[in-house]
């Protein structure tokens, strides 16, 4: 017997960790697919700012999305992780994929290249004092 999974309690808004235990983002939305005569199918977890802000106010999410498109049109698509990759959920959600192979770090890389690397000491990696 498969245990039911309360999506809103145990998945939505939780921290996603990838296979290397790196932070991927929070679960900002859950993608459901309607099926003829059958219950909705949980397709994917979605992580991106417009999705989160849309839950507060639709227009706010649209504004954030428009701003993102203005800044970097290539990065404006949300990170989606197929639900089959979820291996555990509770206060965190663990997935069995490597986040570096997804677009989860798109904005992180964009800011790193556009700003951080141009500042003094911005190119070094690792921990401070190493």
């Amino acid at each position, binding site marked *: 017997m498969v245990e039911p999974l309360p999506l809103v309690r145990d998945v939505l808004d939780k921290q996603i960790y990838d296979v290397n235990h790196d*932070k991927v983002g*929070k679960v900002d939305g859950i993608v459901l697919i309607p099926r003829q005569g059958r219950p909705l199918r949980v397709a994917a977890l979605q992580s991106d700012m417009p999705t989160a802000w849309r839950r507060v106010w639709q227009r706010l999410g649209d504004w954030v999305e428009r701003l993102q498109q203005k800044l970097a049109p290539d990065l404006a698509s949300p990170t989606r992780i197929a639900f089959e990759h979820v291996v555990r959920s509770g206060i965190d959600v663990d997935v069995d994929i490597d986040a570096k192979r997804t677009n989860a770090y798109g904005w992180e890389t964009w*800011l*790193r290249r556009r700003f*951080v690397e141009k*500042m003094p000491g911005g190119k070094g990696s690792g*921990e*401070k004092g190493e």
Partner: protein
Amino acid sequence: MVLQLALGIITAIGGFLDAGAIATSALAGALFGFQLIWAVLLGTFCVILLTEMSGRLAAVSHHTVADAVRERLGFRYFAIPLVTELLQDVLVLSAEIGGLSVALHLATGFDYRIFVPLVALFLWALLWFGSFSLIENGVAFVGLIALSFVVGSFITPPPWNEVARGAIPSLPLKDSGQYWLIAVSVVGSVLEPFLLNFYASGAVEEKWTVKTLGMNRAIAGLGMSFGAIISIGIVILAALTLGQRGIRVDSFEQVVLTLVAPFGEWGLSLFVASLAIACLGAASDVSLNMSYAVSQGFGWNWSENLKPHEDARFACVYTAAIPAAALVVLFFDPLNVTMIAMALNAVIAPLIVFPLLILMNDTAYLREHTNGPIGNVLVAVVIVLACLFGLVAIPLEVLGG
């Protein structure tokens, strides 16, 4: 372990004292003598209770307050404290940058505005290049110079029976609007909402576990209590020096007298050093908290121990916040900004404290370390008090001028 405990206590003392604590305590002493010491004690009791809980949450679950509020109550709730706390943190940060700039003005005689961009740049560099422990322990150690306020109150001893009477809440004898506004501001300066998430984030940075729960209790209790003793020292000295001369504090410059009276010509240097270090410590804490809250809220990589290349989004939050806060204090008087920020602390406190009551009873996060009935009753009392203060703060701000 003992060293870690001592460092933690010193850091907590440093975290307690800032431009707000100095300004509100001096104002309280100057206008109402020892009568508002109870407000310092009340704020301290609340902050000990709440920081112990946020430290416990972090040590047991390795989740901070911002993390857990979003995860447990959802983004629709989380967005409200996130946005209000960010706006409030910018105001508190501008008060700290203003305080540090005023300290440099007192040391050199130049207009404080000249120092605002330099202070902002120095603060940014400290966060950009410094590790968490360097920033926290280093600044806090130097900040022990603020103990001059305690030493000063023994050099010019007050009537201790009157000081003790001030520890009991009493109704104002004059200017009731101003009395309650300052009381709310004093509590707000101690119970700064950003401290809760900052303290929890520090606990995760320092890798606390269930084994450090005793240390958490000692750091929250002793560190905050020592910090309160410094604030009470300021109230006493302000009552003896400013109050007795009928000086109504309308700028930081007048507060210098609190240390000049007991220490003579050394008083100015001690005051400048105390104000500068207290403000620098608080400015770094509040800047980091903005980065912590946003990064944790959206699930990004975060740690002040990582180089900015590793957590670019985290570093970019404080990089954007510092100039924004510096702009505020370029156009508005630092003492006014400080007083408004402290009163508004009381307004937003319920938004942050209320979720803590839910989180501290969630076994998914706290396992067997959830709150007991006494802890819950005490948090409920703090929530009621915070709501009361929050409701009256803005009308009092208008009435009390």
